[in-house]
């Protein structure tokens, strides 16, 4: 019985965090996003060099074949660093879709390229969660038509995996003729979601997803777990910054952290977030070891981290007083990262409903 990170996992976490600390500082992020860049070349190359893009991809397909807990640790570190890289869509959701729904040939073609960073995938599954500004996506005669909204990592993608109205998933060349992509600018400039319109575009069906929703659900679950981990990292940084500010900032001749009101705000944030870490770890762990538990847990991790994340983003900003409201300390980058995470792949009320359904309730 050991519910803890292994030595290797701590090392992985340290190496990713260490790299990002040195190479993906707030200044770096600011510079990048100022130019509208959501896949920052240096950082992308850096984490590619760390060999983690193929974190969940089998060794024989060029990956490092580690587990989802390892992947969640990376996602958490990227959230901490508000790193502008297309990790969740390209390195997690797309491989999950391919591994669970793809043919051998599809896996052999694409997974090594994902692992090497040669190809970036975007993933469009939103319509299968909650359809809004679209009539969905139809597949007919091997061609896709329709509109996919909020495609994760879609702006920087070379290739796309798109779920059609039946829940079947397809590989599509993001630059094929008949594909029209637009970046949808959100509050979070460190990542971009895309609108992609298909006009009778050649699509390569993932055969395992044709009559089975499992590959799609596993793809969504994987994305949700990583988003939860990303929010965990981002919220953790906000607490650390608030505590540090409260230890430094003086008002009424005292550091504000010595006032019970501020102290308790910090204590509440920390005690709300700390148990979330265990939920994220456990949930990620189930993907490999107890997959029958994953669906319900992935929903809970996503929804609960959304709630706790929102609350911490607010309180941490309040602890900073007016300074938190400015761009000077950049706190709002984390605020907005958490804000995007909350809505991506289902806002909390919807996801909780799925958690209930997953238990047959």
């Amino acid at each position, binding site marked *: 019985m050991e519910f803890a990170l292994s030595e290797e996992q701590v090392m992985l976490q340290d190496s990713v965090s260490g790299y990002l600390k040195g190479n993906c500082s707030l200044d770096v992020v600011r510079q990048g996003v100022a130019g509208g860049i959501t896949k920052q070349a240096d950082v992308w190359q850096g984490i590619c060099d760390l060999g983690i893009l193929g974190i969940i991809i089998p060794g024989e397909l060029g990956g490092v074949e580690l587990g989802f807990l390892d992947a969640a640790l990376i996602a958490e570190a990227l959230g901490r660093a508000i790193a502008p890289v297309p990790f969740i869509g390209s390195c997690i959701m797309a491989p999950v879709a391919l591994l669970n729904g793809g043919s051998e040939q599809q896996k052999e073609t694409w997974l090594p390229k994902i692992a090497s960073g040669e190809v970036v995938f975007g993933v469009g599954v939103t319509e299968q969660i909650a359809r809004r500004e679209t009539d969905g996506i139809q597949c007919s005669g091997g061609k896709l038509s329709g509109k996919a909204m909020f495609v994760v990592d879609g702006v920087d993608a070379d290739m796309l995996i798109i779920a059609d109205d039946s829940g079947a998933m397809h590989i599509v060349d993001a630059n094929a003729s008949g594909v029209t992509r637009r970046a*949808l600018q959100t*509050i979070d400039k460190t990542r971009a979601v895309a609108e992609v319109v298909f006009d009778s575009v050649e699509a390569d069906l993932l055969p395992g997803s044709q009559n089975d929703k499992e590959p799609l659900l596993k793809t969504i679950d994987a994305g949700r777990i990583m988003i939860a981990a990303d929010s965990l990292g981002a919220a953790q940084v906000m607490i650390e910054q608030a505590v540090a500010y409260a230890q430094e900032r003086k008002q009424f001749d005292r550091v504000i952290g010595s006032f019970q009101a501020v102290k308790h705000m910090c204590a509440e944030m920390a005690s709300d977030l700390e148990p979330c870490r265990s939920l994220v770890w456990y949930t990620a762990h189930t993907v490999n070891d107890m997959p029958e538990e994953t669906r319900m847990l992935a929903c809970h991790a996503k929804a609960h981290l959304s709630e706790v994340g929102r609350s911490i983003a607010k309180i941490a900003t309040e602890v900073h007083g*007016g300074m938190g409201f400015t*761009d000077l300390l950049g706190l709002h980058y984390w605020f907005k990262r958490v804000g995007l995470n909350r809505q991506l792949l289902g806002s909390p009320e919807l996801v909780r409903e799925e958690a209930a359904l997953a238990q047959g309730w």
Partner: protein
Amino acid sequence: MDLAYSERHQVFRSELQQFLKEHKDSAPKGRASIGKASDEAKQWQQLLIKHGYAARNIPKKYGGYGAEFDILESHIIAEEFSKSNVRPGHSGDERVVPVLLELGTEKQREELIAPTISGEMIWCQGYSEPGSGSDLASLSTKAVLDGDEWVINGQKIWTSGAQHADMCFCLVRTEPDAPKHQGISYLIFTMDRPGIEVRPLVTMTGEAIFNETFFTDTRVPKDGIVGKRGEGWFVANATLKHERGSLGDPNQTESRFRSLVELMKNETIDGTPLIKIPAYRDRLMRLQARMLTMKYNGMRILTAYLKKEEPGLPRWIVKLQGCELNHQIAALAIDAMGELGVLYEDSPYIRDAGMWQKSYMLDLGLIIGGGTAQIQKNMIGERALGLPKEPKYKQGA
């Protein structure tokens, strides 16, 4: 309890409604911008003053309409402009004009009020400093009298509109040896002087609503003081009170709530309007109840003012409750839109021009600004409930 208005006020209201109907097309669109008024805005303000719907209670000789103050008239004006979504006029600058009227010299009033009301003269406020936020009275920007001039050194923050401002009203420490509340003076001066540097301060919304303003040996005339030396804290408090008064205005909350309802009727998930999806619907109803409590609470405050009574607790809680409620209304709007709710700036598909995300952040700024929620709770606890202040502690302990 009599919620009907007097004959006179009913007439006043219907005249105003008539006026708005006739003239609303000449009103500038959108919110007033910080900084210089456009010609269109100035003309609109002139028209409003002429009809007594702006600067209504400012004496004629200072450029106002010159009516006796009547709180119900003010209330009706605010309500009708809000309902019809027409940009209201103003009474100059609500932070400084009341101070000048009450405590300024006749010369100051004559020179400053009229251009302020007309929109020719723009003001910025120099109160907060990087080191003095909640503890404003600890401010350290100094002014030393040198002949006929004050020489100012220090830094102010949150000086909104400073880059456009003609004038500054500013709290400075002139009596360094006095206790902190008694060493402050209230100065007014033009912003075109050497030694004033304004640096824009970008906020989380991405806009530079505020500035940092630096004073280096800035010389301003000696007679630009309101009240006496060392009385600045008390001069300023009248305006601070006024500023806090407008945060959490229930009219605005109600109008926001109505927009939220519209949004939830129009936005759909898999074809179902959000207002029909129970978990969102329940949140909407919770917020409606709170919105209504604040609306009627506002009526209670208004009544107290009408009776020349201090409203007490109902007044103390407006900022704390109102700003938080606005924030939660925006939060529900964002959740109801889902991914559409995080779109920003000029994104396609953005709803209501992105106002919900902007409000969500601005409201958080307002929860913090003008007295943080924590300071509000101290005040409510101590002043309204009579709980003791924190005891004095040993210096250096």
